[in-house]
């Protein structure tokens, strides 16, 4: 697959989210060892590595679902290592999962509505009970934002369908839509293209780049589609057995002998030959 994308260039040096020397042990297993990673505003950072490299574990640590054995995580310079996922979400962090964590009883549209309200009208969780506002038509700004996202992700055709039973690719798009509906400043996407075909992957990549350009979102991306990662990321980090073996611009990583030997070699070569 060829993914030719214009990378956003409005980068600043201060990172929105950073992992400092993060080590994560599960009993005797070292899932992450002294991993450092930073995602500045309006930047797309890719995180790659073979299965079991520790990518999803690092996502868990950065989103607050896992507490690291040592090291710390900061957002906008503040240490958030001991803050809950809810607190980090309130600071602007949103994420998706390798296995989509959807709410089976809600429709596609309701996922986005809920996410929007959690960010922009959280008090409605309580006030709706008294005001009966949930029985009325949602406000225009909410409808506009939700409609825009549904359209951008091509979910408008199935917006009123319960998510239970949706194909994997659509489930991922719903999860991405839900993450975008909170207007995040930091977005962690775990294998967003898995289950999507080539056209859908390209459209998703364009949408994500657009979001990063327009809203200055810091995007951290775990992805197995090497072309996608190398095509849209400003910086790529490579994990192997919990250890960061390389980091830098895609071209550098592409040329890194250790990476080629350890992980990317065959796929890059194949990509080069096909090009």
């Amino acid at each position, binding site marked *: 697959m060829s993914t030719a994308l214009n990378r956003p260039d409005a980068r600043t040096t201060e990172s929105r989210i950073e992992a400092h020397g993060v080590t994560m042990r599960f009993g005797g297993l070292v899932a992450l060892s002294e991993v450092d990673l930073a995602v500045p505003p309006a930047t797309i950072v890719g995180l790659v590595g073979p299965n079991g490299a520790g990518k999803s574990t690092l996502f868990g640590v950065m989103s607050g679902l896992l507490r690291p054995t040592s090291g710390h995580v900061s957002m906008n310079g503040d240490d958030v290592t001991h803050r809950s996922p809810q607190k980090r979400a309130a600071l602007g962090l949103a994420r998706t999962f390798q296995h989509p964590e959807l709410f089976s009883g*809600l429709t596609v549209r309701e996922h986005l509505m809920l996410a929007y309200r*959690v*960010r922009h009208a*959280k008090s409605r969780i309580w006030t709706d009970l008294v005001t009966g506002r949930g029985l009325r038509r949602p406000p225009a700004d909410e409808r506009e934002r939700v409609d825009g996202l549904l359209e951008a992700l091509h979910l408008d055709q199935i917006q*009123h369908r319960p998510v*239970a039973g949706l194909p994997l690719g659509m489930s991922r798009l719903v999860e991405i839509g839900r993450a975008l509906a909170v207007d995040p400043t930091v977005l962690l996407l775990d294998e967003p293209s898995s289950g999507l075909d080539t056209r859908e992957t390209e459209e998703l990549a364009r949408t994500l780049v657009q979001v990063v350009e327009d809203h200055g979102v810091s995007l951290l991306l775990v992805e197995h589609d090497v072309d996608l990662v190398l095509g849209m990321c400003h910086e790529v980090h490579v994990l192997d057995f919990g250890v960061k073996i390389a980091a830098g611009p895609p071209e550098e990583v592409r040329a890194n002998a250790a990476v080629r030997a350890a992980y990317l070699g065959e796929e890059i070569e194949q990509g080069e030959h096909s090009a």
Partner: protein
Amino acid sequence: MLSYVLAGLSLGAIYAIAASSLVVTYVSSGIFNFAFGAMAFAVARFYYWLNSQHGWSIWPAAAVSLLVFAPLLGAALYGLLFRHLRLRSPVVKIVATIGVSVALPELVKLILGDLADATAPGLAERPLQVFHPFNAAVNMDQVFTYVGLLVVLVVGVSVLRFTDVGLKVRALVDSEALTALSGTSPSRVSLGVWAASASLAGLAGILLAPTTGVSVEGMTLLMAAAFAAVVAARLRSLPLAVGVALLMGVVTTVIQKYLDPSDPLSGQIVPSIPFAFMLLFLLYYAVRGLAGDSAQGGALDRAIRPEGADTPVVVRSEQRRGWLSPSVVGPIITVVIAAIMPLVFDEYWTGLAAGGICLGIALLSYTLVTGEGGMIWLCQITFAGFGAILAAELAGSHGWSPLVAIVVGAVFVVPIGVVLGLLTIRLGNLYVALVTLTFGLLASNLIFTRDPYYNFGQGTFMPRPDWAFDNQTFAYVALAAFVILALLIVNLRRSTAGLALNAVRWSETGSRTLGLSVVQMKVLVSGLATYVAAVGGGFLALNYQASLPDSFNPFIGLIWLAVLVSIGSRSVVAALVAGLVFALLPGVFAAYLPTDWSHLPTILFGLGAIMLARNPEGAIAQNARQLTDLAVRLRNRRAPQAADPPSGRVDDPAVPATEKEQLIPGGRA
């Protein structure tokens, strides 16, 4: 002391046999058998029928009961019900087995007859032989319980460890999918497991009969006590279950040595011991984070398991909220029918209908906690009991206005529900069901039976308001209360809190990373459901004009839940229908049909719950969809050329299936 220990080991042996059966069926089929007590009763009653009523001698009667009747019963239940449950949600599994526990004993009574005197012999000849080892006393019934447990353990371990059949059962425990791929039929293995489980249930029932009699209550309490050992074993460890069961039996009898038999409290403490055991283990496991939902089967089983297979499909788009939509018209018609009943019924039937409406209020609490919150609470009837007692105390003893007493009294019950919600927040679905049932049984044993609340079963007098003394006016008061609470629940469902509650129900991880507080949502639904249950209890007391603590037994609550869920746990109108059915159906049978048929309403309630295995959404949702489909077909037949272009809504029943496929990207073009 030795006599107490030996008696305790006997009791513990029966618990252990029951616990073994529960563990084996759970690990091999993923179903926690709430029908165990009913199965034990059925086999014990059949044994009694052969032995005492038809004069068969002990061993032929036992052999036919345990080796023919019980396996056939287990196989029949597997074929009719359990095999359909493996991939169902926990609530459907629990309610379907509760359905068996409700229907089976009544079916057995219908066929074999009611027993006026439930006292029954066990496996030992009468008169009972008594031995005196080390100056202690052991009777032959007790010896048979030791031998029974020993045989079960030796045969069970031998079969599981050293035979081809045991290997297949252990393979099934690990992965049904891989077992099937290796050429073994999981259905045949499961059928064998359920047949063996029914035999164990029967053995436990027959061994228990000399102590408690051949009664459903005795067998059900045996089952509930065995739950404690199963929970201690974290549902899986057979040796731990047997060990804890024996320990529980010994503690139960030894503690009686130190209790004053003349103190009424002693009679309440002893049956509560297994439940105290269960609470202690649950709390321990909850603190250690070891009581979550356990995944059934292996990786392949999880990969091929259909997600949301029995998820109720509820369309809540703002586009469907017109006044003429089925979701609005249906409830209005139902409420209107309920409102007409007091006008056309005489005083007797109006009284029954009023009771049904009051029960409908209490059932709304299940709509909240199970339908909306997805939490399987089996103690809503206990909250209703608290509400009834408090309201009756405030109104009857302190002169409060009855309605104010109900509304205010219920507020005092809410903290109990909130604390229970907080304590169970880290527990898996099945553990939540067990801990709430245990809480209900403990409250029922230790609080409801205490004077002055109990008062020989009458409870406290609860006066109706002077202006609503007659059944007709009272029925309308209850209906008004039902409608108000139902509207509040609909408001909750449509609100942001309703969306958040739904989110938490389906994915706590997704909810937390979205910024939602799981604790807040669970506390909200726990508190609201507790309040509604307590208000319902207050109205039930107002209906009976007394608090009647015995009517709030948790086992009756299981029937409430079975009736409600079989009609529809997510529908507010289902609560009203369930309440009316529960109250009126026995009246119809009693008034118009022979007395022999008095068991039929309960059998029908149980069968309704059993039907959940085929139709997990409940009768209302299923019928509503069928009616909507019929209307769509009729409309399309009348005006095929006027069909609107696709609206883009694939969930819209108005869109034919072929069009839906076109609307779904990747569907048929």
